[in-house]
């Protein structure tokens, strides 16, 4: 058994490999399987068969709306040859087999879930299916080829055998070196199954989000944090708060003030009565305006690090044309504010919350509380939105510390104001886009991107989970600093573009003053697609070409970009919008998928109205077509919010926005008709959760140019 298991681990995840930094991974020795039960047949960490006949799938990725709950079940069910709805699904605890090969930790992000699970999860399910068939064959003394598994039963000819009756015998079976997987032509569910398996729970109010977790006697906690990033607590007076109805305790927790009360309302009312004095910290006096001006200056004065060079610089002949592009900080604004329920006891600590990074949270709680990780138990939930926010685990750590210090079970709930002001933001970024125009063609494109580094801030968190624990803390920060100068997310989408100009160069200049940063749906692509596809549109107009023809003429006709863009133009009837409407388009590759979008817009009386978005996506093999459609619509509305509304600004090192009146999100009356088409593909699956977002801002800006003649180079888009 153990030999087979080891083989499976090697085949399924990149554990034991080495990180980009050349550091060997540690701590991946045999770990007990999650939810192990001795009576179960559990050939791997993903699947188990219980004596009552139930097959359980450990959901090792967080469901935050992107549909992974249904997607994982569909892939496993295909190899088990049973409807996905027959599976029992559990949120997985940490296990090394659940480590994401892209991130080296167990994490949900980067639109990687389906892509990185497609092979290992189907193999895990196929292994379980094989063991059952092999056991049935042995029991009946027939060839395994005559045994099949279908819809939850094993069949030997017409003879039906209950899988649970085979558990003991199945344990004795040997797995072949390569467990065969179904051929694509035999798929019953992959590419066909549409119904979301979490829909019923989510329309009846029964779905359990972190905020819904219950514990007897749990108090509600709110935390008053320093509004200035990096600032600290000078003093506070809680006498009025302590006299407020329902308040049980007020205490200082790691530089913030926690209020514990019988319910959230009481805690919040009391918190409003605390008077606090803060030290403003390192960002005192820093404003978004000043940071933007600094980026423009850096673009002119600094070379930064070259991240791409294609062709010879001598090819850059002709007249130079350049423009600055800018985007602001953005908050994630998940509908469910950050929260966690924590209970500390002599046995350790138990936490219920919605997390994208269970393993990172586990490590962070261990560091913050000093409680050994074997005594920390984390329960993941449905996430009321993630978009990258819940990769961070600040809110989990806060709840753990409040529970530890107060000794009481607590449900920490952030207000919307907390959520807006204490996010890890999409970086504010600037690009100096330049090209040389030689007659009517483009001879070069030269880009300088200036932005603070997410990677530099985030990597120390990762390495704390990856590297041996005895390393001093300074090493982790050092690695972060080292990596920051070449943050891949700052350049993604500006390099490896489909455009075949004779010379292409891209540089990245890091800005080192910054608000806390994090991964925000589509990360660097969210701004870089706007820079790139907006500027490409400018180049088309500079050379008097139709924006569609210009793009197609400068890319490989055999490329996916060419196919996707051509199809989008055809479906949107490019060039023939309804009367009074104007069109813009963009195409962008991210997370392995290529998406083109055509936006129809009108701008009567200075009011931008988006009427329709036509979207074509090539995301490889599709698992659940209607979920892909939903994700494209979702990503487009997310991108439209950023394009039309989103802006977080700093003043004196503090965020000025607070709630949905000054950090507005797109509403139904502003959301366009969205027409999504999926290109058929036999390639393995690629990303779906994020790739719909990047093209929409540039496509919209380009449509606005068509409508008004105004070239808008800064988000959010504002007509002058």
């Amino acid at each position: 058994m153990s030999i087979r298991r080891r083989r499976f681990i090697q085949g399924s995840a990149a554990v034991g490999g080495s990180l980009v930094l050349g550091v060997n991974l540690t701590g991946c020795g045999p770990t007990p399987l999650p939810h192990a039960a001795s009576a179960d047949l559990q050939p791997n960490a993903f699947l188990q068969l219980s004596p009552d006949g139930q097959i359980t799938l450990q959901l090792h990725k967080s469901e935050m709306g992107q549909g992974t709950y249904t997607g994982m079940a569909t892939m496993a069910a295909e190899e088990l040859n049973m409807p996905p709805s027959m599976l029992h699904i559990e949120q997985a605890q940490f296990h090394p087999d659940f480590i994401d090969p892209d991130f080296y930790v167990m994490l949900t992000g980067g639109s990687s879930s389906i892509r990185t699970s497609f092979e290992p999860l189907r193999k895990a399910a196929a292994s379980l299916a094989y063991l059952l068939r092999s056991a049935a064959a042995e029991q009946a003394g027939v060839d395994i080829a005559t045994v099949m598994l279908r819809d939850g039963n094993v069949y030997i000819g017409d003879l039906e055998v209950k899988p649970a009756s085979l558990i003991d015998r199945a344990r004795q079976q040997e797995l072949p070196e390569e467990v065969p997987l179904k051929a694509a032509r035999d798929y019953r569910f992959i590419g066909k199954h549409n119904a979301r398996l979490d829909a019923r729970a989510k329309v009846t109010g029964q779905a359990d989000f972190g905020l819904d977790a219950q514990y007897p006697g749990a108090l509600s906690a709110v935390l008053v944090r320093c509004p200035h990033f990096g600032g600290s607590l000078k003093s506070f007076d809680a006498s009025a708060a302590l006299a407020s109805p329902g308040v049980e305790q007020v205490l200082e927790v790691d530089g913030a003030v926690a209020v514990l009360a019988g319910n959230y309302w009481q805690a919040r009312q009391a918190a409003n009565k605390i008077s606090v004095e803060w030290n403003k910290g390192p960002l005192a006096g820093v404003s978004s305006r000043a940071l933007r001006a600094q980026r423009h200056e850096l673009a002119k004065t600094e070379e930064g690090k070259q991240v791409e060079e294609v062709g010879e610089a001598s090819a850059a002949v002709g007249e130079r044309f350049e423009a600055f592009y800018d985007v602001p900080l953005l908050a994630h604004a998940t509908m469910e504010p950050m929260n966690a329920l924590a209970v500390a006891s002599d046995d350790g600590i138990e936490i219920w919350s919605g997390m994208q990074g269970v393993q990172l949270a586990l490590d962070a709680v261990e560091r913050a509380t000093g409680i050994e990780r074997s005594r920390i138990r984390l329960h993941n939930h449905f996430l009321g939105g993630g978009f990258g926010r819940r990769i961070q685990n600040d809110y989990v750590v806060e709840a753990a510390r409040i529970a530890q210090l107060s000794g009481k079970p607590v449900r920490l709930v952030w207000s919307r104001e907390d959520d807006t002001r204490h996010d890890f933001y999409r970086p504010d970024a600037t690009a100096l886009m330049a090209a040389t125009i030689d007659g009517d063609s483009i001879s070069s494109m030269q880009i300088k991107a200036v932005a603070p580094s997410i990677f530099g801030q985030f990597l120390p968190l990762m390495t704390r989970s990856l590297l041996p624990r005895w390393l001093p803390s300074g090493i982790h920060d050092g690695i972060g600093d080292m990596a920051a100068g070449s943050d891949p997310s700052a350049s993604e989408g500006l390099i490896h573009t489909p455009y075949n100009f004779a010379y292409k160069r891209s540089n990245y200049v890091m800005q080192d003053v910054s608000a806390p940063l994090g991964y925000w749906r589509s990360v660097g692509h969210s701004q870089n697609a706007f820079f790139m596809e907006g500027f490409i549109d400018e180049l088309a107009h500079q050379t008097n070409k139709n924006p569609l023809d210009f793009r197609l003429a400068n890319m490989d006709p055999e490329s996916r970009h060419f196919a996707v863009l051509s199809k989008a133009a055809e479906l949107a009837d490019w060039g023939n919008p309804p009367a009074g409407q104007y069109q813009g388009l963009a195409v962008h590759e991210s997370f392995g998928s290529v998406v083109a979008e055509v936006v129809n817009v009108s701008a009567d009386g200075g009011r931008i109205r988006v009427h329709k978005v036509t979207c074509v996506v090539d995301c490889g093999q599709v698992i659940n077509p209607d979920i892909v459609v939903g994700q494209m619509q979702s990503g487009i509305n997310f991108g439209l919010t950023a394009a039309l509304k989103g802006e977080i600004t700093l003043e004196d090192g503090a965020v000025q926005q607070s709630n949905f009146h000054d950090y507005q999100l797109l509403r139904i009356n502003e959301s366009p008709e969205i027409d999504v088409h999926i290109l058929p593909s036999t390639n393995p699956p690629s990303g779906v959760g994020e790739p719909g977002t990047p093209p929409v801002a540039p496509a919209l800006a380009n449509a606005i140019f068509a409508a008004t003649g105004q070239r808008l180079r800064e988000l959010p888009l504002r007509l002058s």
Partner: protein
Amino acid sequence: MTSLAFTLNGKAVELDVDPSTPLLWVIRDELAMTGTKFGCGMGLCGACTVHLNGNPIRSCSFPVQGAVGQAITTIEGLVDEQGGLHPVQEAWIEHNVPQCGYCQSGQIMSAVALLESNPQPSDADIDAAMSGNICRCGTYSKIRAAIHAAAAGVQHYDPQANKAEVAS
């Protein structure tokens, strides 16, 4: 503290609570019914939408004293005694509306109230009635389709009804 009484999903409720407490926190924290969600606390997002005598209200900004003697319905109250779903819930499932799902209790409560007062809403009617409910996952296209389907009397869940396919 004062003893307050109202009807919640057809059942009488009586509890001691500060009458200025928003109804949302009475439902969630005092009664531990978690289908109704907290999004903004300022009446801006609609996640907390419940019905007061059949009319949609934002429970985060509605003091519980306003509910005294009235009938409150939450998402849990839409399901009938046999566990049968409301046609709007059925339509939501059929159209795969929920993504993260966090806003959907509020969306559904608003949609049910809309269809009660306007059984055949136009797109403009839907926009007007639903614009107080934010969906950060951007499920608006599917919400619109599901409301039209519910209006057309689609009552039963048919898993084959989702026709999305890979285009050729």
